């Protein structure tokens, strides 16, 4: 009894002590007491989507190290990343963002990963006038969110470009082939459909849609439905493991189709590490951001060389789009800090970003323009890459340049 009582008292004391700790690292918002510009990162560092958050953080750390050590910082200040984990849980995102804004007093949060997490905090960030970066579903940007910035083309447009490629370049329209879309039953899948459906209608392509639970791994009935529909093309809008499960089931049932991933978040050669190589040569992906394995892209080559020099070979082996995403966010926010000047404030950073026009990152993504945009998402184009199996290794090679969608997609409400 006494032992338990002591343990209980100790636990209570530690809990209260920890709960009351506040790490005040900044004197003025965005600048730490040792004169560093603080940039927050909120993403899934744990949980099923941890591969996304960890890859981004790795890239951002690499780039910030480069800026600090080799370029001497920005406007005489070093940059410091302040990462927080939210496990892709909007409830945790709220706590993480509030901590970054009010306790750590960061200059900006770049990025906040995910649509549901950003929806939970965008109003708070707007009220606090703190810049945040987010991904590419258009929904969070609709409305008056002057401090919320996206990078790369909206998922809706990428999906439309992908379907138009199937229709015109692969001859589906001419041959009367139909397309079967398997998308997750969430906001991400919704964004994909917003692009696929109008594009299919404009191209006169028969599109069948089936929604599946996010992270579904049982596709027996789905593949049966695909067979019944006679579709020649399957668009899978689910993340890596889920698309791989679909491909495995398709192979098991002897399905003879061509697969496409409709946006950059799902276009990954890493799928074939899980799915096997059956569909490697019958795979296309639409994306606006370059693939992590694509060393023909100067920025990607530069980043990979740096990881190579640092001996981080495990990073090079991964086929994870989020390494690129972290890199381009880091580059863009550093450019914003640079343009905001030595007397940087949160508002000056926001202004600098809003006035950004055709900023060329040197690869990775099309030049960034926020000036004059009704939604602060850059990019109106996407390109298509094709899977290629060579020496037992699957890689993705671009087969088209960046192109706009033919169909007009209304992103505003």
């Amino acid at each position, binding site marked *: *009894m006494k032992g338990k009582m002591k343990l209980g008292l100790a636990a209570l004391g530690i809990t209260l002590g920890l*709960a009351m700790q506040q790490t005040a690292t900044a004197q003025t918002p965005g600048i730490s007491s040792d004169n560093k510009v603080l940039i927050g990162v909120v993403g899934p560092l744990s949980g099923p989507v941890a591969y996304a958050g960890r890859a981004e953080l790795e890239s951002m750390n690499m780039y910030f190290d480069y800026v600090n050590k080799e370029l001497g910082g920005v406007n005489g200040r070093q940059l410091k990343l302040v990462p927080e984990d939210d496990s892709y849980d*909007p*409830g945790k995102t*709220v706590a993480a963002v509030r901590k970054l804004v009010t306790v750590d007093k960061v200059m900006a949060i770049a990025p906040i990963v995910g649509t549901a997490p950003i929806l939970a905090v965008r109003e708070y960030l707007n009220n606090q006038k703190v810049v945040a970066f987010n991904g590419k579903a258009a929904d969070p940007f609709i409305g008056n969110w002057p401090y919320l910035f996206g990078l790369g083309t909206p998922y809706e447009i990428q999906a439309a470009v992908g379907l138009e490629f199937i229709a015109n370049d692969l001859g589906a329209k001419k041959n009367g082939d139909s397309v079967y879309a398997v998308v997750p039953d969430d906001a991400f899948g919704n964004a994909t459909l917003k692009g696929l459906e109008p594009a299919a209608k404009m191209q006169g392509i028969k599109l069948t849609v089936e929604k599946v639970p996010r992270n579904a791994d049982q596709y027996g009935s789905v593949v049966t439905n695909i067979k019944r529909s006679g579709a020649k093309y399957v668009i899978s809008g689910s993340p890596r493991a889920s698309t791989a499960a679909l491909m495995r089931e398709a192979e098991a049932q002897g399905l003879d189709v061509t697969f496409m991933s409709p946006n950059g978040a799902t276009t990954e050669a890493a799928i074939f590490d899980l799915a096997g190589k059956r569909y490697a040569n019958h795979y296309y992906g639409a994306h606006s951001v370059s693939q992590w394995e694509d060393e023909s892209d100067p920025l990607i080559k530069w980043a990979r060389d740096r990881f190579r020099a640092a001996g981080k070979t495990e990073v090079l082996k991964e086929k994870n789009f989020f390494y690129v995403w972290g890199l381009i966010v880091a580059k863009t926010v550093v450019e914003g800090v640079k343009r905001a000047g030595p007397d940087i404030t949160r508002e000056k950073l926001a202004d600098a970003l809003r006035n950004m026009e055709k900023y060329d990152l040197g690869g990775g993504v099309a030049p960034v323009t926020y000036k004059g945009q009704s939604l602060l998402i850059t990019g109106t184009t996407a390109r298509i890459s094709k899977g290629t199996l060579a020496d037992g290794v699957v890689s993705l090679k671009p087969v088209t340049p960046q192109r706009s969608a033919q169909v007009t997609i209304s992103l505003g409400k």
Partner: protein
Amino acid sequence: MDIVPKRYLEEHQRDRRKMMHFRLQQVGMGVLLLVLLWMPQQANGYVLGLALQAMIAVVGAIGLNFVVGFSGQVSIGQAAYMAIGAYSTAVLMGKFGLPFLVALPLAGVITAGASALVGWPTLRLRGFYLAMATFAVHFVVIMVISRWDFVGAQTGVAVDRPSFASGDVSFYYLTFAIMALLVHMAFNIEHSFVGRAWGAIRDRDLAAAAAGISLARFKLWANVWSGFYVGIAGGLSAAFLSYITPENFPFFLTIQYLGMLLVGGLGTTLGGIFGALFITLVPEAVRFLPALFGAGDAISPTLLADGQMILFGVIIVGTLLYAPKGLFGLWEDIKLYFRTWPFSY
């Protein structure tokens, strides 16, 4: 022979100690109340946000406790009921123009109705079978709100705070008042005939039935009260987040609430409060561990993130093994220790 019997003096001393103890409790409660009311004036947005999340968790945990702790039923549909409460609040305010203070209790009533609707056909189920039934509720509810355009489907729906409580501080006070009222009600229910009937059903349902307690009626009441509380927690959560989507109500939310009850102590209102505070605040405290021990940036954020998940599991397992009565049991032990000091019992 003594003029005043020794035994009388001894009893009088004991009574005086009891009175002091009661006053000590009152003073303690008063101080706690003052601190909780003064805190928002000094706290920053992060602490306020945590406090709000903790208070909402308290309401939700007490609600779940009615079904799981008090009446001994199994329920793993917590996230679904919170979703019903949240979306009901959003729709009543957004589509029907009702003020927040009307929409919130109505959302509680709607959720209570939904809970009763599920509770009625499952009255004869127990254990694993009841768990599966409530598990199914989660998927049905999430599927409906994900596809129903009326509630925004996957896009979700915005929820405005009331104009008189739009800021964090004012919303804190509003939430605090609602929480205090519901906690007070819960204490009264716990110590009423209904609470005792629930306890009898939980401990020996056949004996309770033999004693004249209607199992069906009281089990249904547990579902109704649980639904009401959880619905209000959902509504408060929606107003706090200001935008809700189906992704705000994952199955893991149910696991978290069950964890709150296990850690806090099943079957008591205070246990639900302790568990809600502990599970909400301790994982957040892990964020500050590196700074607390002067490690700064030495501990990798990914290690810290994994540490939070591991900590949650360790807390649950540790509680089950070493403190089966939870934090409430520890609290009772602490009180007993000081009450009987310097004696052991």
